């Protein structure tokens, strides 16, 4: 059987399972949210497959893209955090996890984790902190971020509502500044609006919205319904 006559596409180790993540950092909080739909092409696999995970009382990690890769990233980060705890007798800080994740992703530069991650939590001063990544580990700290299938829909909305971009008479928050000026209540409201709207336009987003709120008191998890169509 000559290879030149091959008609079937050869095995691809990747698949995009969709899903959208969002994060907003404030002076003393961080909000990280994802929808819970898992898709495969036009099929919905399940309406409830969480892809955001609490890593510690200060840190939360969300993933989107190829579900098995995202799952592996979370598992390995958790293992590293456990080793760190044993070696240093303290919990890993969010910036430290942030650096670890970047290194871990880059180590698979030539067989990448097809996973679009957001790491959120509180930094050492107790300020909200968000790290943005691409699939191969390029990282930066930002005040707000969207990733995943509806990122292109949600990010401009956040730029406008959180960073006051293209608004007259409001001080703009630079993309490089660490936190936004929003109150926690405002941030949650914007989060819910962002997902309700993304669900209308993006077929890979919907079913449920999972919101993690990180404050100095720990991590609170909320689940809200989204449209299931």
């Amino acid at each position, binding site marked *: *059987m000559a*290879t030149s*006559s*091959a*008609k*079937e596409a*050869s*095995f691809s*180790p*990747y*698949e995009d*399972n969709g899903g959208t993540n969002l994060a907003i950092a404030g002076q003393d909080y961080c909000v990280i949210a994802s929808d819970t739909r*898992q898709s*495969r092409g036009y*099929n919905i*696999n*399940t*309406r*409830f*497959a969480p892809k955001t995970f609490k890593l510690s009382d200060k840190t939360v990690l969300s993933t989107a893209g*190829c*579900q*098995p890769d995202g*799952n*592996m990233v979370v598992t390995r980060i958790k293992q590293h955090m456990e080793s760190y705890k044993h070696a240093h007798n303290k919990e890993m800080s969010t910036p430290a996890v942030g650096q670890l994740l970047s290194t871990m992703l880059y180590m698979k530069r030539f*067989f990448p984790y097809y996973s679009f991650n957001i790491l959120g939590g509180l930094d050492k001063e107790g300020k909200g902190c968000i790290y943005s990544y691409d699939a191969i580990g390029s990282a930066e700290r930002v005040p707000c971020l969207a990733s995943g299938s509806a990122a292109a829909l949600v990010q401009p909305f956040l730029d406008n509502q959180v960073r006051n971009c293209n608004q007259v008479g409001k001080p703009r928050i630079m993309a490089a500044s660490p936190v936004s000026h929003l109150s926690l209540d405002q941030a949650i409201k914007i989060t819910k609006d962002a997902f309700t709207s993304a669900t209308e336009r993006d077929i890979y987003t919907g079913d449920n919205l999972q919101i993690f709120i990180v404050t100095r008191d720990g991590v609170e998890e909320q689940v809200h319904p989204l449209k299931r169509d």
Partner: protein
Amino acid sequence: MASIKLKLPQAAQNAQEPITHSDGPIVTGTSVLGIKYKDGIMVAADCLASYGSLARFRDVNRLQAFGERTIIGASGDIGDFQYVQDELEKLMIKDFCLADGHELATPHVYSYLHRLLYSRRSEMKPLWNSYVVGGVHSSSSQRFLGYVDLLGTTYQSSTIATGFGAHLAQPLLRKAVEGREDTLTEEEAVKILDDCMRVLFYRDARSLNRIRRAKVTKDGMEVTDPYSLETEWAFAEHIVGYGA
């Protein structure tokens, strides 16, 4: 048979060409369906193993029990499934020999399968299957129904359908089961699965009306002998160009 790829041993491949591994499944099983119901988990699959479009083996078992309370349904490559069966049996024997009162519950078997399939996809030597793993915990009576595939994709749901079933049966299953997981009786569950398997037989050209069904409850597991679904073809008489 241009669409069927042979799995060539490495030595048989042209040295000039890059090494390729399983380009696709060869002998295949079609959909597996799984649902939660009042007493536990119910899973169904037909008895056919196809060789491309040829209905090659007509009495194949694609439901594999693991211990007393875990059932695994396989679709995709039958050879890969048999390899996985061997691995699972090894695991079961190892577990049995330790004889320490610990047995692998459904979520643990599910996790093992997931790791096996994910590591093989990461080596670019995928085990070409989709699995439905169902079970009930022996002491807590908690139900578990999960899906794993050749990429290592995992999810849990109260209804699962692999392959063609994901398109045809899943909508029917969701309509019948979602929100009624704790009230559906065994009789209702049987009817739902039989009906869906029948729909699949009518429309999936790689399926058979001879099926096996397994249920797992807190009291244990029962796998039916193969049985045939009643089908109705009289309407075909009225289709122009079909039949007589």
